[in-house]
């Protein structure tokens, strides 16, 4: 058992935003101040957690002294911590941006409690150690996300987010049925205990496989895996910009994280090449279809939303390669590349949406064909879009360049070269949709005097985009260390 000082951040990551949500509700007049303070301390807790995991490896904590089945079990391993760190830094950027984004009092009062609640659910989801707490967090996340998305208040936003809410509910109920199956078969909900039980009881394969199918289908709906992505573009495109950023960069990622967690930890003995191939095929379809629709999108935020569909698709391409690659440095690299892609997309997409929101506020609309002048008036924001865009394309130096490089390397090495074709097509399409926007930024409009005009809105977008490119693209080695992977030269 690690000392309390080490495990404290584990609890704080969830409790702090929850407390913040309470205070923001109780003190609506000071919601912004409460929100910013909470964002700062929560992000600090996430950094502390990262340092603790960096030094100690995986952390476990069982709250309240109950036995694992009933207690709330928390656990932070490398994968969870990497995502927590990404999510909390991104959420901090979104909070700074949001503090200047909302103008009327009603929206400010509604935004902050919901946003902090979502943040707590997100951290809870990444850190939960048992399947039922995961379910609760999943629901909390879905409900707060849908409520936030509808804050825009117009008809499209409400309709899209209502659909998002209902679809999300369907997904989590399906997941819960899978959980019921697992509990029936193995009598536990703890991830570690279940993993051992599933590995030990091969005669229960049918139940386990059914549970896996239910749980992963439910989560695939929430992760918007093609063809279950239909709800995502309208919901993400119509939400307020900071919410779009959170939905696309973080919330969808949380559902994918759960799939990955189940795939790697719980169902490892049940997963096979057939299931992996199916998911990767759907992922390929997502890459191609999402990128194509992004290219055809008339509006900037819709483009970004379809791009999310495509980017989630890439993550599923890793599964058959993970199955085909034996334990060793090559598999380590593959796993790290998968996390790198997910983390990079988190930073890049958040930066993209925040920048797109500013363009929208300035232009009064976000129709791509008419954005030229605005893009040229806001050089820092256009720059953020360009940086985030190159991370979405996978151009060097960006985390996704390294991710795609390792992905293609392993695809060739395992003889599954067809994924390379998918990646190339997706990359070319991504370049086309990103530069479709950027090419409008070079017009004949008057020159802006300064690089940055509105620091509170422009700096978070720029910093997030820059992280996805410069930090993750040039120094991703620490991710391997955090994940506890050697990944020596494969």
């Amino acid at each position, binding site marked *: 058992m690690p000392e309390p000082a080490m495990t404290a951040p584990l609890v704080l990551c969830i409790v702090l935003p929850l407390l913040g949500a309470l205070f923001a509700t109780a003190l609506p007049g000071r919601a912004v101040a409460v929100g910013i303070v909470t964002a700062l301390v929560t992000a600090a807790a996430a950094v502390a957690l990262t340092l603790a995991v960096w030094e100690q490896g995986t952390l476990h904590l069982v709250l309240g002294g109950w036995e694992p*089945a*009933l207690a709330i079990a928390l656990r932070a391993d490398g994968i969870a911590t990497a995502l927590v760190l990404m999510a909390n830094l991104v959420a901090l950027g979104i909070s700074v941006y949001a503090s200047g984004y909302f103008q009327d009092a009603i929206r400010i009062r509604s935004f902050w409690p919901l946003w902090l609640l979502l943040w707590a659910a997100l951290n809870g989801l990444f850190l939960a150690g048992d399947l*039922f707490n995961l*379910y*609760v967090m999943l*629901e*909390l996340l*879905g*409900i707060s996300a*849908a*409520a936030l998305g*509808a804050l825009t208040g*117009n*008809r499209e936003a*409400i*309709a899209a*987010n*209502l659909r998002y*809410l*209902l679809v999300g*509910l*369907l997904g989590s*109920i*399906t997941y*819960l*049925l899978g*959980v*019921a199956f697992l*509990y*029936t078969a193995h009598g536990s*909900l703890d991830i570690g205990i279940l993993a051992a039980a599933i590995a030990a009881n091969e005669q229960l394969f049918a139940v386990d496989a059914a549970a896996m199918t239910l749980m992963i289908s439910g989560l695939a709906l929430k992760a918007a895996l093609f063809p279950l992505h239909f709800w995502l573009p309208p919901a993400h495109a119509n939400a307020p910009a900071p919410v779009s950023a959170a939905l696309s960069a973080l919330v969808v990622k949380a559902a994918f994280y759960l799939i990955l967690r189940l795939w790697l930890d719980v169902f490892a003995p049940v997963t096979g090449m057939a299931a992996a191939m199916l998911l990767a095929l759907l992922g390929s379809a997502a890459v191609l279809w999402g990128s194509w629709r992004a290219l055809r999108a008339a509006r900037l935020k819709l483009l970004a939303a379809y791009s999310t569909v495509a980017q989630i698709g890439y993550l599923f391409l890793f599964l058959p390669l993970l199955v085909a690659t034996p334990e060793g440095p090559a598999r380590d690299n593959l796993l790290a590349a998968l996390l790198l892609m997910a983390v990079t997309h988190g930073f890049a997409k958040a930066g993209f949406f925040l920048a797109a929101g500013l363009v929208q506020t300035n232009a009064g609309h976000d129709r791509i064909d008419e954005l030229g002048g605005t893009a040229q008036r806001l050089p820092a924001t256009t720059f953020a879009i360009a940086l985030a865009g190159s991370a979405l394309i996978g151009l060097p130096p960006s985390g996704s360049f390294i991710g795609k490089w390792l992905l293609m390397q392993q695809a060739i090495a395992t003889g599954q070269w067809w994924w390379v074709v998918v990646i190339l097509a997706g990359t070319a399409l991504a370049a086309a949709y990103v530069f479709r926007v950027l090419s409008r930024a070079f017009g004949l409009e008057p020159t802006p005097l300064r690089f940055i005009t509105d620091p509170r809105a422009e700096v978070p977008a720029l910093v997030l985009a820059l992280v996805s490119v410069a930090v993750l693209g040039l120094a991703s080695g620490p991710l391997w260390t955090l994940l506890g992977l050697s990944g020596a030269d494969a």
Partner: protein
Amino acid sequence: MTAQLLYGGAGLMLFVLGIWSFLVHEPLLRKVIALNITGAGVFHVLIAVAYRGDAAPPDPVPHALVLTGIVVAVSATALALILGARLQDSDDDA
């Protein structure tokens, strides 16, 4: 044992019926009700799982799950209905 199977099987049927209804019917209210039925199906399964014979007390874990699940389902339903009402309002305004 038979009662348990019956109860669990009925739960599964509710689940399937709920999903079918959710996919087929357009009106919001029906979708919300369908989701609740789907959820109820899962809760049935969990309650059946908790049964450990007439002599032994039932397993508390699935019961806890069901209670939490109901709370979640109620709040989600409430939010869905509010959003639905807003939608209705904006349609009336238009």
